[in-house]
């Protein structure tokens, strides 16, 4: 391992500065007294109190959270199944097509996914609104869950599973008693990823929505087009705060569970 040179440190500091400075500035100016977002006029939390009286915004936030909760949960189930299919069953008819359909949505431009789902919903005569957004979100987030869970399954010691099967457990029981507990951290981070992707989505939601279902990103987008205001900075700051807390908590939980699992495995080996 080479040394950590000054050049390495400088590139990391500059790179991370670039990544974080805009977000930090956005947060700072959400506490600005003035309506101008670029001129500092003193500390104030008035934009946050104003948010509480903006009923349309609160409604949009509620719609967004419900969509994200439902779609992330369904996407986690489907994505975990897809990951199992990809890793455990290396031979079945149409596997090439299947793995293609799992990976393609990861890079597919959102305008294409959004338009194609909308046209599907119109073709089958589904009323557009809350549920069409949810279905669309399940579809594109399940692929991200599949990739996250798949990478955990690949590093999984399959002999534990085989032992359970040999000892007479049914495949279903083996899955719930052995496989699921081991991959649980990955399934959980898949859920969190699906939740934040859904929370964040603008383009696919805009295409698949109908009357009465406005999500928070759609609301933010329509206000942003009219100009930068401290009120939007305040919403954004709240969202960033929620996500930051969520990610930090999730990573701590995951780390603890993994340490626990490693201890358990070592203890199990020591006994045998």
């Amino acid at each position: 391992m080479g040394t950590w040179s000054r050049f390495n440190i400088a590139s990391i500091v500059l790179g991370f500065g670039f990544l974080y400075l805009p977000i930090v500035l956005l947060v700072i100016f959400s506490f600005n007294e003035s309506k101008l977002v670029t001129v500092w006029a003193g500390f104030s939390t008035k934009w946050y109190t104003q948010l509480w009286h903006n009923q349309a915004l609160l409604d949009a936030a509620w719609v967004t959270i419900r969509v994200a909760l439902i779609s992330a949960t369904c996407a986690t189930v489907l994505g975990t199944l897809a990951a199992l299919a990809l890793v455990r069953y290396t031979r079945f008819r149409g596997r090439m097509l299947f793995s293609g359909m799992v990976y393609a949505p990861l890079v597919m431009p959102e305008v294409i996914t959004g338009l194609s789902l909308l046209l599907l919903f119109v073709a089958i005569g589904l009323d557009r609104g809350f549920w069409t957004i949810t279905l669309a979100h399940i579809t594109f987030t399940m692929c991200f869950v599949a990739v996250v869970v798949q990478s955990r399954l690949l590093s999984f010691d399959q002999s534990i599973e085989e032992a359970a099967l040999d000892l007479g457990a049914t495949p279903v029981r083996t899955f719930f008693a052995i496989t699921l507990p081991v991959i649980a951290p990955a399934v959980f981070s898949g859920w969190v990823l699906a939740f934040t992707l859904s929370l964040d989505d603008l383009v696919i939601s805009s295409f698949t929505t109908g009357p009465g279902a406005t999500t928070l990103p759609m609301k933010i987008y329509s206000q942003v087009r009219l100009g930068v205001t401290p009120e939007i900075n305040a919403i954004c700051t709240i969202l960033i705060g929620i996500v930051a807390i969520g990610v930090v908590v999730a990573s701590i939980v995951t780390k603890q569970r993994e340490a626990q699992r490693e201890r358990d495995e070592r203890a199990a080996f020591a006994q045998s």
Partner: protein
Amino acid sequence: MTRVASALFSRLVIIIPYAWLLFFFLIPFFIVFRISLSQTAVAMPPYTPVFDLFGGLSGILEKAREFSFDNYVWLTEDVLYFNAYVSSVIIAAVSTVLTLLIAYPVAYGMAKAPKTIRPTLLMLVILPFWTSFLIRVYAWIAILKPEGLLNQFLMSINVIDQPLIILNTNWAIYIGIVYSYLPFMVLPIYSSLEKMDHTLTEAALDLGCTPFTAFWRVTFPLSLAGVVAGCLLVFIPAVGEFVIPDLLGGSETLMIGKTLWNEFNANRDWPVSSAVATILLLILVLPIVYFQNAQAKADSEGK
């Protein structure tokens, strides 16, 4: 009994996600293609002929006679669309190169960092990815505006005396794409650099290579898989990007994602938007297939 249950379980594991993706991902593309052959109409849905799933085969064939490639002919006749495709590909390519130039040193620095702080660095790279894309693009408006924070800063330290015009130019789009997609480039490069056997570089140095030659002839080729994955993860979505050109680019900036959006939302021309999407998909098919193969290969190596 067990065998039956086992077979049923493995069937379900495959069939459920398979059917979902077929119905919600693959079939919609065929519908897009089909509607791209229709004509715009003032109705709901705003196109004709309307496909009737229950019309039977003869009904479908009857309707199929009304299909036409007029929309595609129109796309080739109107130079606006051609320019939008070309400039989307160019903007995406330039941004991908810029992202690579910035991401590589960061990933390299992370891979060389002491093992104890690497997980923290990794989390710091991933964290912005979890915060809203829209918010991160929005943050740049206040920075790049003529009276924005960047110009205020540069003028206060007397680097410039006239504000730079960046917002609503292609430069703002480059900055937006590089910024939004940076983690997608850093992560695959970092993971390929981290796996690398560092004794190889040391051997090259011992044998008299300069550090740069050792990097260029040993380290860089070994990280190429990560570089390719990162470039595809940035390039493909960037070609169809909508939010960044819409918020940061000017009215004269042509990008196909924005054109499609306007065609759909402002002009309500579903058939033409479908034709635009079909061609965009055709342009991206090769890189997407390449990306899938690279992913599948990486997975089978991971086993």
